[in-house]
């Protein structure tokens, strides 16, 4: 199933996900009223039914939800004073739409490239070594072709530490796969981790994708997590690791 077709039944909106996106962009529905958490829950429910995680589709979903989250957080926050960040909801929506269209252009160009590659595949080129008499390059015949300063300049560039980049214009990009890896690595070292302790200093998008990774781990039975009160600490426990440990012990006991 395409992410776009995900059926939603929210308080303020009923219909497929891509339509929600469209009406939000047109401000037919106020994004402030849309519970994005419910959208994520619906998606996770769908994953539950599907069984397997399609990473491409999941990534697409994350991109879209992240864009909505960004838009919503801009709406919720008081207007920023800084130049460049004072986008109104309308400009933000335009920008989002422009980004989606730009993406679509390269997605379609990529598909065309894929077809071209397939059409060219039957033309095979020769890949044979040169006959021995042509293989030897005569050093004596070699003349100066390069400027040694080129090497000095390259080394100078490598010696300069890069300036701290201004990232204010770049949106953070986070991959679910990588967040899964991070959480799994932490759970291998400790059976319990505290979410705030581990991820509290990350940016919001990273935190959101990490939560999504936790949902995925929960679905697979690799971890469970709990939060006893609103805004309270979130404790994550690795289940699979302990479970495996027990099975191994039981097996060893049986043989012994």
């Amino acid at each position, binding site marked *: 199933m395409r992410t776009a077709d995900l059926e939603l039944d929210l308080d303020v*909106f009923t*219909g497929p996900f891509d*339509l929600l996106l*469209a*009406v939000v962009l*047109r401000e*037919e*529905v106020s994004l402030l009223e849309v519970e994005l958490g419910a959208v994520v829950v619906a998606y996770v429910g769908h994953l539950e039914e599907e069984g397997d995680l399609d990473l*491409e589709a999941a*990534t697409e979903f*994350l*991109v879209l939800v*992240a*864009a909505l989250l960004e838009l919503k957080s801009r709406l919720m926050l008081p207007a920023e004073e800084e130049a460049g960040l004072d986008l109104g909801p309308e400009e933000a929506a335009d920008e989002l739409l422009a*980004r989606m*269209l*730009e*993406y*679509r*252009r*390269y*997605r*379609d*160009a*990529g*598909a*065309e*490239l*894929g077809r*071209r*590659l*397939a*059409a*060219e*595949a*039957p*033309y*095979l*080129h*020769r*890949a044979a070594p*040169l*006959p021995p008499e*042509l293989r030897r390059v005569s050093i004596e015949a070699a003349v100066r072709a390069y400027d040694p300063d080129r090497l000095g300049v390259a080394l100078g*560039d490598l010696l300069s530490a*890069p*300036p701290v*980049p201004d990232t204010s214009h*770049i*949106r953070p*990009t*986070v*991959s679910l796969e*990588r967040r899964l890896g991070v959480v799994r690595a932490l759970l291998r070292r400790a059976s319990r981790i505290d979410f705030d302790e581990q991820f509290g200093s990350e940016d919001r998008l990273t935190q959101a994708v990490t939560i999504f990774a936790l949902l995925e781990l929960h679905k697979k039975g690799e971890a469970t997590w709990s939060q006893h009160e609103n805004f309270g600490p979130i404790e994550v426990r690795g289940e699979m690791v302990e479970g495996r440990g027990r099975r191994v012990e039981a097996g060893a006991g049986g043989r012994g």
Partner: protein
Amino acid sequence: MSDGSAAELARIVEALLFLAPDPVPVGELIEACEVSEVQLRNALDLLAEELAPGRRGIVLREVAGGWALATDPAAEAAARRLLARPKTPPLTAAQAETLAIVAYLQPVSRPEIARIRGVSSESAVQTLGERGLIEEAGRSRFGAVIYRTSALFERLFGLRGLEDLPDVSKFDPTPEDAADLRERLLEAGEQRAAP
């Protein structure tokens, strides 16, 4: 080349292209054969005629800024049986998108690719690099590696050069698409107003 009839020159050009591991630019052929550009172009014309599709097992192609020999597609199945050459794996969607961005916007850095795709594109960039389709072209002023497509890219995609890429505006949404979206929006608005 002393006597240098066009036929003799065409034979020599054919031999050079047979030996050369990569497509050979016209300039290099002229130097190697020690002839004028007009003489060489005539020889290439003659060779193109002799190797016209369907005439021999080998065809003449202009790719990646030079001339190359390749086998006729009719021989593909037998060639794969003989050489056990695996078919080039098709591009995944992520690789195709990334390659399109590099091809049209080059030189382009990974953060820019990620911005357009909306997702980190590390593994697609790495795979395209390993397949030799893209290569590093220096660094941006923030120290990020920037990328461009390679000569192998042009060869595998049958392009004489980057100017052979289809016009990117061809892939912009059609007015019909836009109208369609607008209609769906209006409909959604009405549905919401109804109850």
